[in-house]
């Protein structure tokens, strides 16, 4: 049901903005202005999202359950949290230490059991990334 609720929120934001902007119509230059299109699309999304939500309620009542996300149990949720922490660490510690820690820990999440192997592979990936992106491609790193 989470996706339906997110869609409703996006639609509500669009409706609010569309209604606000529909007052700023530049009749000669732009007959509908920046708000009408936004309002119309948001209305359509609101109707679709509401219909999906109602359908979900009916299915729930009939005993049909959605596929469990179980983000807190599986590797996906842990990898996602680690990715967020990686972003924060890269901002404050810099790319190299943050990446080294990230690559070591994420291997554990993805099933590597040996810490030494995690450390060696993690350090190697970090070095390769730094060399390829920073030296070869000349790309800016966080």
């Amino acid at each position, binding site marked *: 049901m989470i996706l339906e609720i997110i869609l409703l929120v996006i639609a509500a934001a669009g409706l609010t903005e569309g209604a606000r902007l529909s007052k700023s119509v530049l*009749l000669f230059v732009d007959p509908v202005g*920046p708000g009408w299109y936004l309002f119309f699309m948001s209305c359509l999304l609101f109707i679709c999202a509401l219909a999906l939500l109602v359908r979900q309620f009916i299915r729930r009542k009939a005993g049909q359950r959605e596929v469990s996300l179980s983000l807190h149990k599986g590797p996906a949720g842990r990898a996602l949290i680690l990715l967020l922490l990686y*972003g924060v660490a890269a901002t404050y510690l810099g790319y190299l230490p943050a990446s080294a820690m990230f690559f070591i820990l994420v291997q554990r999440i993805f*099933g590597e059991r040996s810490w030494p192997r995690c450390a060696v*592979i993690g350090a190697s990936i970090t070095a390769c*990334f730094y060399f390829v992106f920073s030296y070869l491609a000349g790309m*800016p*790193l966080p």
Partner: protein
Amino acid sequence: MELGLLDGFVRACSPMNLWYCFLGSMLGTFVGVLPAVGPAATIAILLPVTAYLDATQSIIMLAGIFYGAMYGGSTTSILMNIPGEAASVPTCLDGYQMTKQGRAGEALAIAAIGSFIAGTVGALFLSFAAPLLAEFALAFGSPEYFGLMFFSLTALFSFSGNSLLRGASAGLAGILLATVGIDPMSGIQRMAFGIPKLLSGLDVVPVLIGLFGVAEVLYGAEEQIVSVYEGKLGRMIPRGKELTKGLWASIRGTVIGIVTGVFPGLMPSVVTFIAYDIEKRISKYPEKFGTGVIEGVASPEAANNANCQAGFIPLFALGIPTTPIAAMLLASLMIYGLPVGPMLFKQHGDFAWAVVASMYIGNVMLLILNLPLVGLWARLCLIPYRIIGPIVLGAVMVGAYSIRNNMFDVWTSIIFGLAGYVMKKRGWPIAPLILGFILGPLLEQHFRASLQGSGGSMLIFVQRPICAVFIFLGVLLILMSRKLYSKVSVQE
């Protein structure tokens, strides 16, 4: 056309262009073989890297990844019953049975030969059809473009996923998210809610990286692949009647792929099922399908390659992407400031023809890469996911950051990654979201420009015949979507 293509060959044969064509084909085969990383994720991650290259080299490489993945996808389907790509699922049915009978070499060879035939015929069709279509589309005004985009989006909503409501909702959400930032026509801020970072809008690359890169890795983390093929390949080239049957099936698959390739929403993953189904229906021995019939491998493999090549026709001629990967290529064209639509061939003919010519070269490279080196590709599955996954996630971070050198894009890609993961888990289609996000601004621009021309009268959309036909077809597709879906089962 002939001169343009010849000139394109001269440009495509420059050492750097040949190198990027090879690199793209190689990478495409690599990600096609790997079941957990697809061409969409690869292209999304490489988009920021390719921004540092010349436009021709970049598109040659990205296109190579796209059609290279179609070749590579068959290898693990045939040898291990693991489809590298969604489009390779039907290949598993007969391909793996052939492997079990000791005919893996024949299956791999016919898949490669069929893919080569389809890729080359598809490129030939692209060479003739795209300039003609572009010439025709030069007469299009804003209302016609609005109609065309409306039709493309409705087709995608209708075909992607088992629910029109879900497809439409995802597409509409994409359209609305694309409006975040400053309205290009009036300069007024929309959907930014006073947040300064949102004023410049959501960049397409972090969104793509999140939806395809991050989401795919998170999803793949739960389905780790452990098996690898250790058996013998057997004879590499089918002989006699088997070869004839395989070649004819390849030709039929090619025709199916080309016809469906120009149509929005009919992605390779759908078309291979259609090709397999048609092949089974016209066969004299339909009951044998699924037991190791060579036509069951040749036709779907040819269809997905032809479909992928034909998808370049609306992309280059009209600026309309028919699949999410084509949408990424469109985004890449936009990053380089190239005109999307019929003006591409007019104003940047040298670029367009070089890319088209590179497809002929790329197909030859792929045939060479896929036939003798098939054993090597099969062993790529030995690379554990615990190494591939972190590498992809690390590349995602760098890619998202490097576009505008800010962490906001990194957070955007993580948020979209989570959204993509949840959508995948719950069976929601991602293609409409991305197509809506990329086509949304163009749809709005043509909608408002049309109304400017008509003084605000909506009647312009029915008074212009081409626009009216597109809108009528779009509405018809929505009304018939349930019936159509029951015939065309879509796997993203």
